[in-house]
């Protein structure tokens, strides 16, 4: 018998399970970090939360019986991220579904358009989106998830994924167009 270590988590897994975890779950570490980074809007917090989520996943791994390991891991990352937001930046979550609240215009969109790289514009725009909208966009556009996977990861009915994406994309477009022309998007 191997000695049982006092530490919880990884040590409770057998070598075979640990190996299986390595094969099924660890390859999705990039996805885990990516989702955490966009939910938290911070590199350093993302690293902490992704690590915490991976270790949680390792702890729960004996309960994982087949299915899509990426979706399974991303669900855990998402929970860890919301838990973190809940305790650190609660205000962000409560603004979520206020459709009328437009993204705060960053200073001088004209100067911005000239001075800033496209990447920064998009990053800023994405970060201005409410968390739930940012989440579906990141899962769809950066992670390449299907609607079914998004429904699974974010725990919403499959039928609402398409409308959430539609709203998220329209919001993002509005932010990118900028507040000056926001009133008349149909003329563009």
């Amino acid at each position, binding site marked *: 018998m191997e000695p049982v*270590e006092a530490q919880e*988590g*990884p*040590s409770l897994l057998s*070598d075979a399970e*640990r190996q299986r*975890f*390595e*094969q*099924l779950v*660890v*390859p*999705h*570490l*990039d*996805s*885990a*970090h*990516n989702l955490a*980074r*966009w939910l938290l809007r911070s*590199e350093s917090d*993302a*690293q902490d939360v*992704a*690590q915490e989520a*991976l*270790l949680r996943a*390792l702890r729960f791994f004996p309960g994982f019986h087949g299915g899509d390991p*990426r979706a399974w891991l991303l669900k855990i990352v998402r929970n860890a991220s919301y838990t973190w937001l809940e305790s650190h930046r609660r205000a962000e979550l409560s603004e979520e579904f206020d459709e009328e609240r437009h993204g705060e215009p960053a200073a001088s969109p004209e100067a911005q358009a000239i001075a800033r790289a*496209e*990447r920064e514009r*998009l*990053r800023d725009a*994405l970060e201005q989106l409410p968390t739930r909208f940012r989440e579906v*966009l990141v899962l*769809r*556009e*950066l992670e*390449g998830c*299907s*609607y079914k996977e998004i429904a699974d990861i974010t725990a919403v009915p499959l039928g609402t994924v*398409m*409308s959430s*994406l*539609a709203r998220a*994309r329209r919001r*993002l*477009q509005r932010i*990118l167009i900028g507040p000056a022309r926001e009133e008349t998007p149909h003329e563009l």
Partner: protein
Amino acid sequence: MSCEKAESLLHGYLDGELDAVRAVEFERHARGCPDCTRELDAQQSLRARLRDADLYAPAPPSLRRNIRERLEPRPDEGAASAPRPGRWRWLAAAAVVTLLATVPWLAFRETRQGTSEGTLAAAALDAHLRSLQLGHLTDVVSTDAHTVKPWFEGKLSYAPPVVDLAAEGFPLIGGRLDVLEGRTIAALVYARRKHVVSVFVWPAENAPETAPRSSVRQGYAWIHWSHAGMRYWVVSDVAPAELEQLARLLRR
């Protein structure tokens, strides 16, 4: 179909999530409707901008190392708390040698094609890591398939198919000569976000066509198949699903 209805289907159409009947209905409406066509164009260009902006945030090496350390079997005694040399992917050549020496390749023998698959998997991963470690990713650096393909002429007894897949998210970086199982072969190098993908290609020599088969080990994924007279081995540290996507693109 009304514009409201079309608008509600537009995103499903854009994402390839509509069933065939509704997709055709949507297309039929959009063809005759400038408003919906404009909205579709706008959404497509938004998507292209998002995809091209390199927004993906892959795990930094320090996170990999931390996870890796938590997964390592603990040493039997003694240096339990001493920092262990991380055997993760970004580390020095010495660490890679350690990795290759300790990975139990025997595990691959369970696969249908017997030892040759395991041996090739080891050799292909070895070649991939060697190119990363030695900073020898490419002999010819070009994103243009028409530059890379002729470069191989005279250096190999066959002409590897070379395609750029930048539009599909796998830009070609270049090519190099590599050695697999004692023979000199073409290695095409693609990028996937910040990751490097090695595609080894050599003649199948009458071997039957095989469908893509993939596997993962130690944070690396590979996929291999035979198609149109060529054998392909693809190795990277991206998610297996992404290699499957690349395999589909290369088999088109």
